[in-house]
């Protein structure tokens, strides 16, 4: 995660110049109550999602003694690629000093991105195309959020995560087997959550960009728009069904799952979904308070934090579910061994 952490008080201070007179003042407590977030992280202006991803990958190599020359494939999942070409994962091969014999692809996905990355790499390994792969999920939503959109600033956070998948188990430590997958897509939600003016359709032009010249990042990468009510209903409608679908596919019951690791979208909402599904509170992982919603990085970060607390034991099962921009959703399970 980037070192710059922003408090609710800081967000409010930066929002004040945009606050219309008729609006009533927002307090830090109100912001917290909406999503249970106290601090979120902001990337340096010069850094991209790739840079956060590279740092996460270097940390992974060091902490787990992974030899980079053994990596056979790199999947970079992000909604903030460096270029329309070349593939960001290709650039990362050189940055990270990976072998020139690797395969490297980008996957343009947000909140469901980690599940997609696991699914693609599992398929590549199971079909014996490769023996292992590095999955990097990283996003920098703060660079496309305008300071006036305080609700979006309060939720979203920048981070990168790196995950190593291999046919071979590591000897010291805990391994996890990836289970089956379910997916869902509803492109009719295109306009409910979108980075406007960020690509080929209606690209940013001078007139549009001029509006944002006072903003530090200038919204040069586009501007995030979210119809919060629609996304909120989508999550409440989708997550319980998604959980049931993956449990059914795996032949498991709700009780068989030890940890529910959902995309960390909004703490209050995840808590409510857990209660609604009558899941024991201690099984629903909510780690959002000092991290924020880190889009494609949120599930692996939540997993890593729980791992550091020694929560996972062999035979434990975790259910992972991503949902959001697309609209898109997907789930899988991890069985610790």
């Amino acid at each position: 995660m980037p070192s710059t952490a922003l408090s609710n008080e800081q967000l409010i201070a930066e929002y004040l110049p945009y606050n219309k007179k008729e609006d009533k003042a927002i307090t830090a407590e109100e912001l917290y109550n909406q999503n249970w977030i106290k601090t979120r992280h902001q990337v340096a202006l010069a850094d991209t999602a790739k840079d956060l991803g590279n740092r996460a990958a270097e940390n992974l190599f060091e902490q787990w003694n992974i030899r980079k020359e053994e990596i056979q494939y790199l999947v970079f999942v992000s909604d903030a690629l460096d270029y329309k070409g070349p593939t960001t994962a290709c650039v990362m091969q050189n940055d990270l000093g990976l072998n020139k014999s690797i395969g490297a692809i980008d996957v343009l996905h947000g909140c469901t991105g980690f599940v997609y990355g696991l699914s693609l790499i599992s398929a590549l390994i199971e079909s014996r195309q490769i023996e292992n792969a590095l999955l990097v999920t990283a996003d920098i939503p703060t660079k496309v959020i305008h300071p006036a959109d305080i609700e979006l600033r309060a939720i979203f956070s920048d981070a990168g995560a790196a995950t190593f998948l291999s046919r071979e188990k590591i000897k010291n430590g805990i391994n996890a087997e990836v289970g089956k997958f379910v997916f869902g897509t509803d492109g009719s939600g295109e306009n409910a959550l979108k980075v406007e003016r960020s690509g080929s359709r209606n690209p940013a032009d001078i007139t549009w960009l001029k509006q944002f010249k006072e903003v530090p990042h200038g919204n040069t990468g586009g501007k995030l728009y979210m119809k919060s009510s629609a996304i909120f209903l989508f999550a409440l409608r989708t997550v319980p069904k998604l959980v049931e679908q993956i449990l059914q596919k795996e032949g498991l019951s709700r009780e068989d799952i030890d940890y529910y690791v959902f995309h960390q979208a909004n703490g209050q909402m995840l808590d409510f979904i857990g209660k609604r599904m009558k899941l024991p509170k201690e099984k629903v992982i909510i780690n959002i308070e000092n991290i924020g919603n880190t889009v494609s990085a949120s599930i692996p970060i939540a997993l890593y934090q729980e791992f550091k607390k020694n929560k996972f034991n062999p035979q434990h099962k975790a259910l992972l579910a991503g949902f959001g921009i697309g609209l898109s959703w997907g789930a899988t399970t991890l069985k610790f061994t």
Partner: protein
Amino acid sequence: MNIENFIHKLEAEFDELEPGTLQKNTSFKDLDEWSSMHALIIIALIDTEYDVVLTGEDLSQISTVEELYGIVKVRKE
């Protein structure tokens, strides 16, 4: 828009409720299952389905489903 359809939409979002629980004169805040999240669900549903933005204050001033429908209908027109 009519009130039957409105009630149907509300019930569809309230997983906890048996179909038929919500009636015109049901005081929704007195339901056992009621929580602050249900207020958010109502606000989100009405914004998404009817393009009417209600506030927490609006909700605090009403109690029955019929009154809720009344506000939405007036603001929609």
